[in-house]
């Protein structure tokens, strides 16, 4: 019996036992689709974090107050321990001390209410220097960023994020030149930022009010010189670690502490990615576990239906042997049948997984990355299960004498 003939017979058998075939394939479809989706979620979350971190800017060092081992000190800002000050960041800007830094942007952040007429919006106010757009890789869509002289004077000017503009100036076609009030001061909107799309720790990077440090202190009525975070751009990727060393040495000297009890933390993007990945690893392990279980459940389903199907058909096997089928031909018949079921189910599962990973992000606001490795592994497993549990009992049955097979029931 030729392969073509065998394939035709297998296709007919699959069609003849429609319900059973559909049930078998359902197990495979569910198993494969869930593996693709769960692994996709894990990788999607990982990629999202990576994107967020790289959206911070390039060749970036992030200096924050507080030691990395002291969790209570890592939240900077007004009123908390002032272990990183504007004097520190000014010193970092000195090219003779930190030759490998191109630009330093200290930020002083706090939540502030902005008011435009009847509209009131609370956003994060960032006081910084003119280096901020370059270091954070942000650009101005309309208007301009503040100037050195405005920074020095602590002028009442503000550059708003696009989301902030949407909230405050919903009806105004051109917000540049308009004013908002905050902390009793009237600020002139001089520019609107381009959308960055990223969000970090829950707050959108597109909902901000950026202004000179002195202006921000005026708004908040604070005299503190504490810096929330300082962003440092190295001259290149190659000098990143040199810049790290220089800043580390500078701050240790200025604060008169040893490396062991450093009261500041310097992170690189890589170290952030690493930390994020470590958290994500737990998620990935969890999701992979879920995927493995669903594949197992699908596999057990396939196994059951295959075993039942072969047992039901031992008489058919006996009859075929009585009519002249060799055990080999019978083994081949069930191999092709099981592969056909496995492959069809696998492809449908793949389709469901691909469509799901395309449709789900729209529904639940979570990115899903399609993993070819996961898809291939799931497909191979389903195929192996189907074939294994379809062919093994069939070849065993094919070894019975025809009369024993015919009599079975």
């Amino acid at each position: 019996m030729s392969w073509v003939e065998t394939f035709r017979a297998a296709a007919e058998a699959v069609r003849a036992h429609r319900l059973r075939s559909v049930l078998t394939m359902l197990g495979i479809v569910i198993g494969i689709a869930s593996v693709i989706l769960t692994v996709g979620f894990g990788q999607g979350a990982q990629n999202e974090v990576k994107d967020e971190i790289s959206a911070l800017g390039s060749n970036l060092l992030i200096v924050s107050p507080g030691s990395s081992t002291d969790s209570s000190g890592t939240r900077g800002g007004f009123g908390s321990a002032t272990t990183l000050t504007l004097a520190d960041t000014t010193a970092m800007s000195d090219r003779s001390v930190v030759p490998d830094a191109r630009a330093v942007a200290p930020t002083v952040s706090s939540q502030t209410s902005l008011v435009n007429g009847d509209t009131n919006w609370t956003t994060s106010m960032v006081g910084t220097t003119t280096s901020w757009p370059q270091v954070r890789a942000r650009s101005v869509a309309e208007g301009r960023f503040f100037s050195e002289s405005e920074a020095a004077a602590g002028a009442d000017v503000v550059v708003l994020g696009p989301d902030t503009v949407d909230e405050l100036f919903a009806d105004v076609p051109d917000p540049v030149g308009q004013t908002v009030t905050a902390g009793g001061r009237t600020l002139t909107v001089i520019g609107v930022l381009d959308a960055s799309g990223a969000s970090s720790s829950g707050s959108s990077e597109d909902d901000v009010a950026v202004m000179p440090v002195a202006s921000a202190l005026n708004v908040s009525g604070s005299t503190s010189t504490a810096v929330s975070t300082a962003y440092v751009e190295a001259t290149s990727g190659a000098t990143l670690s040199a810049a790290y060393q220089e800043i580390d040495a500078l701050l240790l000297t200025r604060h008169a502490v040893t490396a062991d009890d450093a009261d500041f933390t310097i992170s690189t993007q890589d170290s952030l990615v690493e930390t994020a990945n470590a958290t994500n690893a737990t998620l990935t392990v969890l999701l992979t576990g879920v995927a493995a279980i669903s594949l197992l459940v699908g596999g057990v389903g396939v196994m059951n239906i295959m075993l039942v199907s072969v047992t039901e058909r031992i008489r058919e096997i006996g009859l075929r042997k009585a009519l002249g089928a060799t055990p080999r031909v019978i083994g081949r018949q069930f191999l092709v049948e099981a592969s056909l079921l496995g492959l069809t189910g696998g492809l449908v599962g793949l389709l469901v997984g691909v469509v799901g990973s395309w449709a789900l992000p729209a529904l639940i606001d979570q990115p899903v990355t399609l993993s070819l490795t996961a898809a291939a592994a799931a497909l191979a497993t389903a195929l192996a299960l189907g074939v294994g549990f379809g062919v093994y009992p069939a070849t065993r049955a094919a070894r019975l004498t025809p009369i024993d097979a015919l009599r079975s029931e």
Partner: protein
Amino acid sequence: MSESIITLEGVRKTYRSGSVEFEALRGVDAAIEQGEYVAVIGPSGSGKSTLMNILGCLDNPTAGRYLLAGEDVSSMSETQLAEVRNRRIGFVFQQFHLLASQSAWRNVELPLVYAGVPRADRRARAIAALTRVGLADRVDNRPGELSGGQQQRVAVARALVTEPALILADEPTGNLDSRSTADVLALLDELHAAGRTIVLITHEHDVAARAERNLVVRDGEIVSDEPVAGVSA
């Protein structure tokens, strides 16, 4: 005298279920010539079906020798046995044993599939065989859509489609009414007239009387082997 197609020498069959052994055949010696029409009769449980299954290479004897056309069956490989069943033997079972999901002609073509006959020839030959058993208008019906007699005739068509030298029928009329019985027996007569060797199991004496020779089996042994009265040996 023509050459023996079947030779049995001291054939025994012992069934074992758990620790219980049952000897269904206790040393059977027989020879059947090419072209003979033999009926095997005997009481229920005497070992007729057991004997027939061994003749059809569907089961192996526990002891003794079975020569089919001079060749020792016990020395054949699985593949050779499959070929013997396919080419030389046509089997008609008491329970029909048709594939329920396939139409009449697809059931009949099965032995041709395993014989490697091309697809186009298979359909033509299957339909010719069905025409021969009077089912030309039923080729596309499934077994479930046929009467018992028609199903058995499909089974007969399947047994003769490969033109085997030996046709074995285990109570082919056991489940049929007198009208269908007459049809099937007429078919066997026809095949016999065409030179085929036929071995038929039956309970009914008027069925056995159609054969040339009767083998009487009792308790696993052949107790009588004689030509049917009125037929010259």
